[in-house]
């Protein structure tokens, strides 16, 4: 109920604007009361009552301001708690799925061993190990939006015959940018890499997605196994509307750069290694 009533007001910062206007009006009233006092010859009881009332009104406005800030903090805290419950539920669902998969694998293993097919059982186990490692890496990502994007992309690319290899060496604890920005940045980069990978005449098309953590930022690398990109194209690829693939295209990388600018991030392309390098600063939080 509280969320419905105040959610949009707090999220859009309307409360702050209302409070600033409210305080400004009170300040003008206070100055007005002083000016009236200045132009009256002697301070009488009415002047005193009027200016006291205006002063008390301002103090009440300050209490309102203080209350609105506390309420806003409470609202943000409750949102964070709801988000963390959502993350936990999602992680639990993933783990339930894993458990279900493990039971299936165990049953297959049991069958193979019962039939005395030790070699096949060993091969099957290695296969299970590699897929479990990839799923385990998803679980390491604390950000559910990035995790979902990667999970969906991995599945979609597999259907197109492209293998998405993920190497995440961070839990991304301080990675807290808008969910829409996460989708824009990583979906566009992976889609671009997939299109590039498909152009190559490789036996196995592959995209590598790596995450590295540094002291103040995260570094995301997207590397594809596609053919080299000409220097001229590489120099213009971030321009809006520039594409080598036809009309009405070429907006993805421009949107990526725009989304990154909003979270003080940067993107660079290295034509030698065919790597998109995305740098996103860690999000810091102030506490008492």
């Amino acid at each position, binding site marked *: 109920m509280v969320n419905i009533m105040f959610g949009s007001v707090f999220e859009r910062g309307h409360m702050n604007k209302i409070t600033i206007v409210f305080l400004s009006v009170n*300040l003008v009233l206070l100055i007005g009361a*002083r*000016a009236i006092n200045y132009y009256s010859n*002697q*301070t009488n009881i009415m002047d*005193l009552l009027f200016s006291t009332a*205006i*002063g008390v009104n301002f103090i009440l406005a300050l209490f309102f301001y203080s209350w609105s800030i506390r309420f806003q903090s409470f609202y943000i805290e409750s949102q964070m708690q709801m988000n963390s419950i959502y993350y936990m539920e999602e992680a639990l669902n993933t783990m339930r799925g894993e458990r279900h998969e493990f039971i299936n694998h165990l049953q297959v293993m049991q069958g193979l061993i019962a039939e005395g097919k030790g070699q096949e059982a060993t091969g099957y186990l290695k296969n299970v190990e590699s897929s479990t490692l990839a799923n385990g890496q998803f679980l390491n990502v604390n950000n559910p939006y990035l995790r979902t994007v990667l999970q969906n992309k991995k599945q979609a690319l597999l259907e197109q015959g492209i293998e998405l290899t993920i190497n995440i060496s961070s839990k991304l604890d301080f990675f807290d940018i808008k969910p829409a920005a996460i989708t824009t940045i990583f979906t566009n980069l992976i889609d671009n890499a997939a299109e590039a990978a498909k152009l190559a005449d490789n036996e196995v098309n592959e995209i590598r997605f790596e995450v590295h953590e540094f002291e103040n930022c995260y570094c995301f690398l997207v590397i594809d196994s596609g053919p080299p990109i000409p220097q001229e194209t590489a120099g213009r690829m971030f321009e809006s509307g520039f594409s080598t693939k036809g009309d009405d295209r070429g907006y993805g990388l421009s949107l990526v750069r725009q989304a990154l600018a909003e979270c003080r991030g940067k993107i660079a392309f290295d034509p030698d290694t065919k790597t998109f390098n995305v740098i996103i600063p860690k999000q810091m939080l102030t506490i008492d």
Partner: protein
Amino acid sequence: MDKVPLISLIFYSIPECFLILSFGLIIQRKKVRFSPLLLATLISVSASYLARLLPLPYGLHTLIGVLTVFLMFFLILGLDFKQSLVSAIISIGTLVALENVILNYIQYKLGLGLKDAMALSPWQRTIIGWPHLIVWASLNLYLYNRLKPHQVVER
């Protein structure tokens, strides 16, 4: 136009401005650093002194004061735009609210108008403003001890 006497400038305007700026920092939970605060105080007092010399109707110089204080918070004391605006409004507002209550009460008791109070001798004009400054200084000190500055930490 009001030419503020030197005694009032030193013993009233400077402490008043120091309290305005430090109050703004304290309510934003920013660390109060003496040197930039003193610099901002001196600039703000000079601007206020010059504004009072202009032939403006009473009250307008207070609005100029709000603008000056906002600029001091924004340019010298390191607050962002919104924090500077809120701090300037709340600080000046609190000062004028205290003047409205305490100074008016003293004027009422002494049977003086504001014009009469301003026409008193420099020392009297200075001392008449001290009670509300003392109350405000106490409030500043209380809030300074109660609202510890924010620290930036990693989550």
